[in-house]
């Protein structure tokens, strides 16, 4: 399989400037500086690279939306990585911090940005030391700072730590948090590209998205675009967790069959149990039943199957699991992480939690299921940010595909337990 991000990922000391450079690191800069910023944006557009943080928005397009002639502009790298099941950014930050810096330099050059922040979740304090060290090294080498490699282009990058709030991964909440406020999402419009950090035009991209850019600049947009499917170009990091024999982060070419990813890449179901369900893109994406395992791993195929590729966190669930129990855990997560601003999200997550908890105490009634679906309908697409929708996803999909797991409680015969 083609490896772009993970080519050298387990190489010793890849996190150091020395090793990273030996592997061709930072060579893209010279190529980039020889071109105009617009050309870099055009190249990223042509590569078909889509955002890897969850929404899958085309990166080049996003960059081209920046408000014209308004400066300063900012770059925020989203390293909040809090979507349950997702841990790929952690591995990149830990093992190849320079790749991110290189990507950020390219993005900043393309978008004429002079200040970049890496917003990391607070729990990544350990990684912030690694990242700070890498930034220092890049400074020493003249890849950061004033007049980088004589190009006349300046850039400073700073790390910034959050402090325990999933919602800060949502881009506008991230901005509020970075500005020193509560991580409540902002109204859109204005979009960050117009009024973002400090009300200035801002690019926000996921770690993985930015890490791909050096490859595109080095190898050309065509080469990247030659990988994957028509609408899903390139490779994607997948964090495979749950009931597989070889959990881990893997880089796969988009369009690979899901079956291959679960059974070959990740070694199949642990304990040779049977697959019951899988969550293809992080806890916010609807779960799919085992019989959909032949779906192709790309944005449009998974969407067609009724879910989303999301952040690329594939959670595999075997048949020993009671789906209701797993669902309750996810609802609990969203209840805990709702910022509390929108009424439907604040109240709805909690109400759903109370209902499912009651069901699991065998005190539920059959009508609860219908009611839950209606509550979900009242929450879905009615809030400020997609967190409420994210909570709805596992609930609705679990009812859709695993209704019998709920019904078992009403019959007093719950299916297994985790």
């Amino acid at each position, binding site marked *: 399989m083609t490896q772009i991000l993970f080519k050298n990922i387990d190489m010793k000391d890849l996190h150091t400037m020395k090793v990273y450079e030996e592997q061709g690191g930072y060579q893209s800069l010279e190529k980039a500086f020889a071109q105009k910023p617009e050309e870099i944006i055009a190249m990223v557009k042509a590569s078909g690279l889509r955002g890897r943080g969850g929404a899958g928005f085309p990166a080049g397009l996003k960059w081209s939306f920046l408000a014209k002639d308004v400066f300063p502009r900012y770059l925020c790298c989203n390293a909040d990585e809090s979507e349950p099941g997702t841990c790929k950014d952690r591995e990149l930050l830990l093992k190849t911090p320079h790749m991110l810096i290189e990507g950020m330099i390219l993005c900043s050059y393309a978008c004429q940005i002079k200040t970049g922040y890496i917003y990391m979740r607070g729990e990544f304090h350990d990684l912030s030391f690694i990242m700070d060290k890498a930034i220092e090294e890049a400074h020493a080498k003249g890849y950061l700072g004033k007049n980088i490699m004589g190009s006349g282009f300046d850039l400073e990058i700073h790390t910034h730590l959050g402090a325990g*709030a999933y919602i800060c991964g949502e881009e506008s909440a991230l901005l509020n948090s970075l500005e020193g406020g*509560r991580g409540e999402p902002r*109204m859109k419009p204005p979009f960050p590209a117009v009024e973002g950090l400090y009300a200035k035009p801002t690019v926000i991209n996921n770690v993985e998205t930015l890490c791909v850019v050096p490859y595109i600049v080095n190898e050309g947009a065509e080469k990247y675009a030659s990988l994957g499917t028509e609408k899903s170009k390139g490779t994607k990091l997948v964090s495979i967790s749950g009931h597989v024999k070889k959990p881990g982060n893997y880089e796969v070419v988009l369009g690979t069959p899901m079956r291959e990813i679960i059974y070959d890449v990740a070694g199949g179901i642990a304990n040779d149990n049977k697959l019951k369900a899988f969550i293809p893109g992080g806890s916010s994406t609807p779960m799919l039943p085992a019989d959909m395992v032949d779906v192709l791993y790309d944005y449009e195929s998974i969407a067609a199957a009724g879910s989303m590729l999301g952040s690329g966190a594939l959670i595999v669930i075997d048949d020993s699991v009671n789906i209701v129990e797993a669902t309750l855990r996810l609802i609990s997560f969203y*209840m*805990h*992480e*709702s*910022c*509390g*601003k*929108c*009424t*439907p999200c*604040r*109240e*709805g*997550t*909690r*109400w759903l939690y*109370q209902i499912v908890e*009651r069901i699991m105490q065998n005190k539920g009634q059959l009508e609860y299921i219908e*009611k839950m679906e*209606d*509550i979900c*309908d*009242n*929450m879905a*697409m*009615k*809030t*400020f940010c997609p967190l409420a929708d994210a909570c709805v996803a596992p609930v609705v999909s679990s009812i859709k595909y695993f209704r019998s797991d709920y019904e078992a409680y009403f019959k007093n015969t719950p299916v297994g337990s985790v």
Partner: protein
Amino acid sequence: MSDNEVTLTIDGKSVTVPKGTKVVDAAKQVAVDIPVFCYHQKIGPLGCCRMCLVEVEKMPKLMTACTMDVAPDMVVKTTTEKVEKGQKGVLEFTLLNHPLDCPVCDKGGECPLQDNTFKYGPPETRMEFNRANNAKATPLSPVITIDRERCIACQRCTAYSERIEQGQGLVMLNRGFHNEVGTFNNEPYDTRFSGNVIDICPVGALTNTDFRFKARTWDLSNVDTLCAHCGCNCNITMGTRLNELMRVEARPNDAVDDGWICDKGRWGHHFVQSKNKILTARENGVGTGKVTSFPAFPLNWTTEEAAGSVAEAFKKIVEEHGPESVGFIGSPYGTNEENYLYQKFFRQGLGTNNIDHKTYQDTPGLPVNHYGFEQIETSNVVLLIASDPTEELPILDLRIKKAVTGCGTRLVSLNDQKIALDNYSSQSVQYKVGSEAVAIDALANGLARELGEPASDVDLAPSGISAEDMKALVETVRSSMKICVVYNPSALSGDAVLRVKRLLKLISKIPTLECGAIPAASMTNAVGAMDMGLLPDFYPGGVPVTDQEEIKNQYGENAPTGTGLSALEMIARAKTGELKALLVHRSNPVMDFPGGLQVTEALKNLELLVVHDMLETETTELAHLVLSSNGPGYDEGTTTNIGGRVQARKKAFETNQVPDWKIINLMLKALGDETEYRRFSDVTEEISQQVPGYQEISKKSVGKVGCDREVIASVDEPVLENQVQVEAGKDGSLRLRIATYLFAHDKILDASSKLAHHFQSSTAYLNEKDAQKLGIQDGDTILLSMGDVRLEATAMTNNRCLSGGVVVPRISDEQGVNALIDTKGRPAWVDVRKV
């Protein structure tokens, strides 16, 4: 349709509104009601509650009408099935943990949650669990109660605290369903503007502690009237029941208060039922002592009965000693009608110009536009001179903050003390206490030079201002496009106010600049009192007493034309016995005039002292005859705010006391004047005929929201020497600046005031240089004295003024700080020492 307008369709109705309007506001224009909780037009969109969901053609999701700007050809639908389901769903969520205690909730009857539920809500909740156990009523401050269990987390109040009040005192704490409204470390939320959160809370979570359980909202009689505390004249609704004050609420008027009131306006009106209220006429030892020149007043008079005799007694004294022997000290708190009639009584009835209402120098009218409050937001520069709006005119403070943070206005200030608004100013220039004339002249001089007008050099040194600072200030003023000058005449000493007017005139000559001013004295009707001619040198409407022709034309052959005595001169002449009789209307010279004991001595010397007031004061104690004045709550009339807006104050309480205007009418009649005023508006009518600037003013034109009076032209006044001498004090003495403090413990906010928690102890703010020289440290008790007047205060060194000065806020009547003013109207030199 201009470029700045957008036409869209809402529920089939076409509507055209300015760009940037939110859909929810556009809907109001065509009578489409979109329910909201969190949205408040003055606070701006929040998008929290999700109640305002609407369907917009071509958009897949329901949209929140409160966050969405109108767009051309947008098609909005508010009653589709999808919308109704959305609204029901949101309401169900909203009510999920809200107690159903409407029967005992203060908001009952005027609750948006109740109303929205009735109109849009689900028939019943499907919630099968216990509600969240949030706290029931707990004090948020001594005057506000919070019922957290009723809170729907709409964030209106916290957004108000952040965006309007801008103090971030009230905040959201915690996250998710643990969200709650609170303060730092559970400390009380007791700002100057805290009460507005009660009005804007869409449920019964934030309530007025004073009002809780006192009455049901529907049992209240509500009167739309004005706050009588400061020169802003904010619009309020007084809710009464059985002739007792239950509560005060804001009554939005964009031209004045922008929808807000300060806490003094909300909780400071209990004086209407003060035990010190004067309820009938009263004689104090009449027939004894010096009161010999007129018949003794019979006992148990009503004020009405007394009026005629008062007039006759004054007339008798005039006949014996001439018109110079009587005088009138009126009130910047009285209505225009009362003030107008009183000056008429003294001028036309008794032939004297011994009429005044203040102890500082000022003249009516402005050489430039008289700006209303709304002009502040459209000015690109606001220049404060000697003004501290936060303490003196609170709503002006909110207006200025709004302009600075939301409208791109720059604030600059020229002041002798640091003020809270300095945090918002781009330049604060400080002059030494007592050197305002230098500072103002220097600014004027700088501008004159730029304009090529004759300019004389001003030595800045005595003011303590650096040349660069002054240069920058000149530049800011010169380069502004529209400037609003806000100056406080009562905080300017000597003839500095005349220098301000000269400055204004100069500014108005800058061709590229639009200029206006707001004379920002803090008293309720300071502008009206001047307009109505409560001045020794001006008839109503700024007609100088020296303008014989005009005066004879307007007021008849016998109208006096010589300059009368000022208030301070009247006191001085009382002392020497030259002034025999004095009528004081709603003023307390003993406490509020310079001189302290000397004033008492002087007043005791009078043959006749009549005091017409609403509350007992140190001055009523000295009066031979006390007449009862109705005052705010009981009176009716118009007042003119500092922005030149004339509004009507209405009566909220029944009283069997005769209104003040009627008493003065009786006095006039006793002197042979035949005019009969049947209602206060008959006087208003006469004012509109007699007073330049007030032609358009009538009961009708004033209506509910008021009406701007025309600018009153100012007369060029001779200004003293260009270069003022700023004399030096002797060692150990500092120049005293008395600062205004909003919540002072006085006759109005007495010991039983709901705002007593704001009362402060006497504090003197020193410059560190002086403190060091005098060996004073923070917290030391120090003694300030001038002659035998003494005042104790706790020292605090925070450089609130430049060295050589000391700032003492007036915090109570007992403190008696006004006794320390120099009787010549200059800041006093006071001796300062540690005790």
